[in-house]
């Protein structure tokens, strides 16, 4: 039994099922991120935890108490909305203490809680202002203050950073992470931004089409994606997907493709599974992250298996800290992440170092991971 249990929860609108048997158990103090594209059901799931949407079947439990049909205010949760949802007619102080007032907390306790929270979030000088007079970052803080002041069991965040500009978003991301480390609260956080998901979470649930595609730690999700959707959704630039032909030769299994000049290229799989052997002679999808394809000097020295391949550069994109170099394998574009001062130029033939330890294979039909 976890702290927050989502047990086979489904959601239907009429005959249309939008969430299919979601099963997630969150431990106390965990930071769970629900990530996925628009319409994947992540916000619906969050609203079901909050009690703003009914649960069609299954159960949601907080601290082992069944929450189905329990009013949002009685679940001891707090929510930060995408638009912050600050009450425009109340001052910042009133906004933060409104929930306490509604729960009948005495005025002295409210004042004290307000003082604590505003100190924690450094918004003491804003308490008398109206939300309309605040900047985006300040509103964000007030919205978090309103959630924090109630000292809830679970915090729910619904895309809280998507209304901020790029720089502020990164700053607030760090703030939220700091806050979580300091307070050790249980958080469920919805976002469509995979970077936010990877940086903030202790665990991620990648969702698509109303299904949880994969549930795991950021590292598991990133290194061992369960299927093509997770592989391409997480990571930027996204994972290179190459069509390769599997060729078994004794114990070794090769992935055959061609380089930009049409010459044959054979990559050896590291520790191939038995399942992969059964794909002998067929074409599969090989996924390699851009950072697993580098210039030989930049290759991961701890990796036991790096393959060197010469190929023609089609485009280089210097991005400051790295240079993204595009080449082709089997006629498909493939992005390599090279050092910033790489000498590779468009049209040149340069060596690429491929870290095969990080390569993952997918069945092109079922899109599931092989092995």
């Amino acid at each position: 039994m976890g702290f927050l249990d989502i047990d086979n929860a489904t959601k239907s609108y009429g005959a249309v099922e939008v969430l299919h048997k979601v099963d997630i158990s969150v431990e106390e103090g965990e930071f769970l991120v629900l990530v996925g594209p628009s319409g994947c059901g992540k916000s619906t799931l969050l609203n079901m935890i909050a009690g703003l949407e009914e649960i069609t079947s299954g159960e949601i439990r907080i601290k082992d108490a069944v929450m189905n049909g329990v009013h949002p205010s009685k679940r001891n949760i707090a929510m930060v909305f995408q638009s912050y949802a600050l009450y425009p007619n109340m001052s910042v102080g009133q906004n933060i203490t409104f929930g306490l007032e509604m729960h009948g907390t005495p005025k002295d306790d409210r004042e004290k809680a307000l003082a604590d929270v505003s100190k924690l979030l450094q918004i003491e000088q804003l308490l008398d202002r109206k939300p309309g007079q605040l900047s985006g970052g300040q509103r964000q803080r007030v919205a978090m203050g309103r959630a924090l002041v109630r000292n809830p069991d679970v915090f729910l965040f619904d895309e809280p950073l998507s209304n901020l500009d790029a720089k502020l978003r990164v700053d607030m991301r760090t703030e939220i992470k700091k806050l979580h480390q300091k307070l050790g609260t249980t958080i469920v956080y919805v976002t469509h931004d995979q970077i936010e998901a990877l940086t903030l979470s202790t665990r991620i649930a990648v969702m698509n089409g109303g299904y949880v595609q994969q549930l795991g730690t950021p590292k598991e999700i990133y290194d061992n994606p369960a299927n093509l959707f997770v592989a391409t959704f997480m990571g930027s630039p996204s994972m290179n997907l190459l069509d390769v032909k599997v060729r078994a030769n004794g114990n070794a299994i090769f992935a055959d493709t061609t380089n930009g000049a049409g010459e044959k290229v054979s990559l050896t799989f590291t520790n191939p599974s038995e399942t992969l052997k059964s794909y002998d002679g067929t074409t599969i999808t090989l996924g390699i992250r851009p950072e697993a394809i580098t210039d030989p000097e930049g290759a991961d020295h701890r990796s036991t298996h790096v393959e060197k391949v010469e190929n023609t550069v089609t485009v280089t994109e210097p991005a400051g800290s790295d240079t993204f170099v595009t080449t082709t394998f089997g006629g498909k574009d493939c992005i390599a992440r090279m050092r910033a001062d790489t000498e590779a130029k468009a049209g040149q033939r340069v060596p690429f170092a491929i870290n095969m330890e990080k390569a993952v294979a997918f069945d092109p039909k079922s899109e599931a991971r092989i092995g």
Partner: protein
Amino acid sequence: MAVASSDTAIRTGRVTRTFLYLVLLLFALFYMLPLYVMLVNSVKPLSEITGGGMMSLPQTWTVEPWTKAWNTAQIGVESTGLAPYFWNSIKMVVPAVAISTILGALNGYVLTKWRFKYDTILFGLMLFACFIPFQMVLIPMATVLGKLGLAGTTTGLVLVHVVYGIGFSTLYFRNYYAAFPTELVRAAQIDGAGFFQIFWRILLPSSGPITVVCVIWQFTNIWNDFLFGASFAAGNAQPMTVALNNLVQSSTGVKEYNVHFAGAILAALPTLLVYIVAGRYFVRGLMAGSVKG
């Protein structure tokens, strides 16, 4: 980029401009004329009007027509002046406006934030009420009022106007609240606020402009209503509009035009006052939601 100045704008010729203002002035005068006639004739003795000087300023100024219209003019069979009927109208319009506005706000709140099955159909039906001609409901309404024991009373008139007003006030508030962020209501729900607390603490404080629009609209319509007043209010309960009609239409004695003019102005004063006090909010409220703030 240099700031655009009027030097570079296309110049309107001096002659054109003068002509423009002249035309505008003419139209303004034309529209002010009835008011002028009413005001001027209400402060002169009857003899000056019957003498043919309707457009000229009074030779002897007098407030007698005003006091007569208010206190002693013959209304129907009694010479009470308009005063008691004025208070009848107040007694009718204040509760009718208040009740229909409050109900409209509640309806708007429920129809946008507590959606239920067939709510749009219900709203459509309420909207339909705005388009039913008054004449159509006269007889059924009279029957209902009779059965309720409210026939011929001010309370009955209040009921009629509330029922008729709800359609419009619901329309106003529903459209206003449709643009009101639902996330605020959800946040308040999580904060533990109940149905009426959300309405009272969150929605209503932000409803100033639309409330003003609704109050002006209802006040003007109800105050100026003649048909319901004439049909459903008997004798002492008649509103100002009916009394004014009785004053002007009386077929006995000399027609005291100066008293009639004074009475007409008295009848129009409250709506005028409401416009002057709340008029600027009226435009602001009508515009609310149409432009992103």
